[in-house]
């Protein structure tokens, strides 16, 4: 089904990373590598393709990126990464964006949240067992956090983890799990102590998705895709060795996971957005399309462009200052709002032609492919990873020191 793709070499190659000290050469080498490996018509070929094809394609691309060290450039050397400095990462993302290369959406969780969690709180054995699996075998991970009754109020989660001989017995239900249907492993939060205060009774586990009792169901989404899933857990067994940190410490460790969602993952996306908006600016100046000649639309665009430039700088600064949670929350809210406003603007200038449904290319909602699916996909950012509402609370209370809402006794 994907015979038009080149076969990925088995061995890793240093050909790109060996040039990382000279950004000019690094950039040229990456550009040449992408041109050589990625078929120019990949997007057209994947239009209307089914989920299975999307997954196979994502796995192929991720393997390609991994072979030359471009999949996890931000991983520290302790995780067999190269701890590429920010300047190097910018070059990589700029070149991928410039080439219109696929975003590894199937792997977003695997390359950001998983190392953030295991490097923060995993044992040496857990890191050795799982991190290479992502890089070398293309293991897919998903998140098992939210529940139908524990969305914004994640700490009220009710999935149970009962301590038994050799491990834990898990019962419950998770929802909004990206890539859940294709995941090999899951980062799972479950309650080990129902009597303890709610934040203190939660533990963090690595769940093998092939375990007995795990049932995954895709959820149809407004943007036409079904990236999110429900995960039903029925007497699932998790061995002791798969507990991350200590029992009851899950909530604290999960903050590291959540932080990944609000910082570094957005970095790549904003670099792509920068390129897309620069291209539109060039289009305006060059061909003077009707939206450029319409003063209102032109001004709206320039205002959005200004916003984007500010956010891009903020994220780059944030990356250098190592994950200040306030900056991460600001960045996430700012990016999500900008994305929604910009994609909405694109729908608007598209008029009736933007209202026509075309076959979707899965997982490319952020590629500027189709106005309405892109716009609808912006909700993935305003709602997941902490809704903009919750993040505003964090900004106001933890960032600005404003008093918490008084607790009403019902």
């Amino acid at each position: 089904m994907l015979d038009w793709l080149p076969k990925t070499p088995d061995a890793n190659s240093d050909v790109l990373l060996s040039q990382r000290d000279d950004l000019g050469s690094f950039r040229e080498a990456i550009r040449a590598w992408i041109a050589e490996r990625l078929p120019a018509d990949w997007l057209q070929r994947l239009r209307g393709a089914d989920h299975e094809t999307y997954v196979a394609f994502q796995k192929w691309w991720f393997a390609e990126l991994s072979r030359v060290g471009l999949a996890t450039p931000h991983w520290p050397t302790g995780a067999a990464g190269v701890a590429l400095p920010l300047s190097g990462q910018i070059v990589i993302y700029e070149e991928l964006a410039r080439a219109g290369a696929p975003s590894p959406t199937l792997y977003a969780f695997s390359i950001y949240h998983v190392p953030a969690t295991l490097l923060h709180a995993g044992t040496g054995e857990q890191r050795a067992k799982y991190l290479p699996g992502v890089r070398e075998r293309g293991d897919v991970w998903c998140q098992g956090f939210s529940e139908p009754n524990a969305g914004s109020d994640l700490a009220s989660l009710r999935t149970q983890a009962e301590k038994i001989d050799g491990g834990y017995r898990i019962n419950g239900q998770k929802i909004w799990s990206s890539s859940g249907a294709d995941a090999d492993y899951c980062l799972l939060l479950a309650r080990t102590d129902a009597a303890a205060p709610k934040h203190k009774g939660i533990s963090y586990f690595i769940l093998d998705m092939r375990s007995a009792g795990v049932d995954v169901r895709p959820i149809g989404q407004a943007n036409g895709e079904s990236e999110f899933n429900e995960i039903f857990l029925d007497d699932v067994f998790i061995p002791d060795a798969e507990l991350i940190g200590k029992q009851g410490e899950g909530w604290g460790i999960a903050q590291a996971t959540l932080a990944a969602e609000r910082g570094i993952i957005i970095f790549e996306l904003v670099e792509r957005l920068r390129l897309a908006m620069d291209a539109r600016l060039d289009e305006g100046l060059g061909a003077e399309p009707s939206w450029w000649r319409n003063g209102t639309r032109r001004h709206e665009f320039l205002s959005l462009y200004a916003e984007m430039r500010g956010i891009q700088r903020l994220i780059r600064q944030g990356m250098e200052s190592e994950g200040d949670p306030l900056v991460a929350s600001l960045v996430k809210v700012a990016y999500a709002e900008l994305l929604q406003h910009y994609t909405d603007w694109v729908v608007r200038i598209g008029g009736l032609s933007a209202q026509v449904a075309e076959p979707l290319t899965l997982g490319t909602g952020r590629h500027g492919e189709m106005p309405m699916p892109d716009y609808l996909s912006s909700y993935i950012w305003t709602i997941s990873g902490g809704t903009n509402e919750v993040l505003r609370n964090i900004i106001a209370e933890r960032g600005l020191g404003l008093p918490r809402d008084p607790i009403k006794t019902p």
Partner: protein
Amino acid sequence: MIGQEEAIDLARGVADLVSDQFDSRALHAFVDSGALRSLRLSAMARELGCFALALPEALGGLGLGIADLVPTYQVLGVSMPPLPVLSSALAGDLLAQADADYWIAHLQDGEGFAVSLPPWSDLRLERGRDEGKLKGTLDFVLDGADARFLLARADSDSGPVWLALEVAAGGVTCARVPLIDETRNAARITLEDITISPRSIIAEGQSARQLDDRLAVHAALALAADSLGGARAILDKTIDYMKVREQFGRPIGSFQALKHRAANLHLKATVAQALLDEAVEAQRDGDLSAAMLAHLAFAQVADAYAAIAQDCLQLHGGIGFTRAHDAHIHLKRAKLNLALLGGTDAALEAAAHLVTR
């Protein structure tokens, strides 16, 4: 002979009946099926006279004028049934104005009509001695995918001309345009040197210009009413949700930030309703400002629907993003409404040219 009030109530009652048959479950089943119509619902609607509302009573309709139809459009904007009520009413009103008996008979028979909407496409009619030749493309005809007849507006050497033609006629190519909004359908209709008999010409010159303006006003008010119905529906649903959904040990509606947001949305919807009422009254009274107000109403209310639907989806959190929820259906309808008639830009420009105080 029924009175005007009675006719308005009758029409709205018919819309209510149809809506009762098309509840949320039916809506989602329809949307997920990818079907063009619900045949059962269409048959019921036809029986109830849904597609003849704008025809004079003597011709089997309810004799409803543009302003009178607004409550019906608003009810249907709530339930969103896949019925060509708007297209039939636009056609009925145009044909009644033009006294086009031959074509009215087809409407009476329950045949589907589609009507080209502004901004006008490039259709060119070359007049001959008896017959004419028509060519051009209509990129986006609402309800065009299964219409049997088309009312189109062309340019000719003697000015604008309104024409009626059969979609199945030779030289007409009709291709369905799949929409993001799964509750409606559209088609691209290409006309290649169609022979136009005198019977097909339903208005020309000054009469045609009057129909242009009348259609623009009718469509503007209809889409404004549809938008308002939909906006109120999703807003009411959202407010109900905020009362029952609990997080952090309390209903999410108890958080002040969300309360303010709900209040703002309600304010927006309430003012939009009042503006529509203003425009409807001006239309009914034949005010000089009626056309201006109709275009302003479309611009403001269509915008309001999109803004309200957008925020209501967000207020539902994760479930708002699912296909199983109504929010995305409303949002997609709102966005299509905003793209029709040349959008708010065209509407506000039209209003600017019609300023009368």
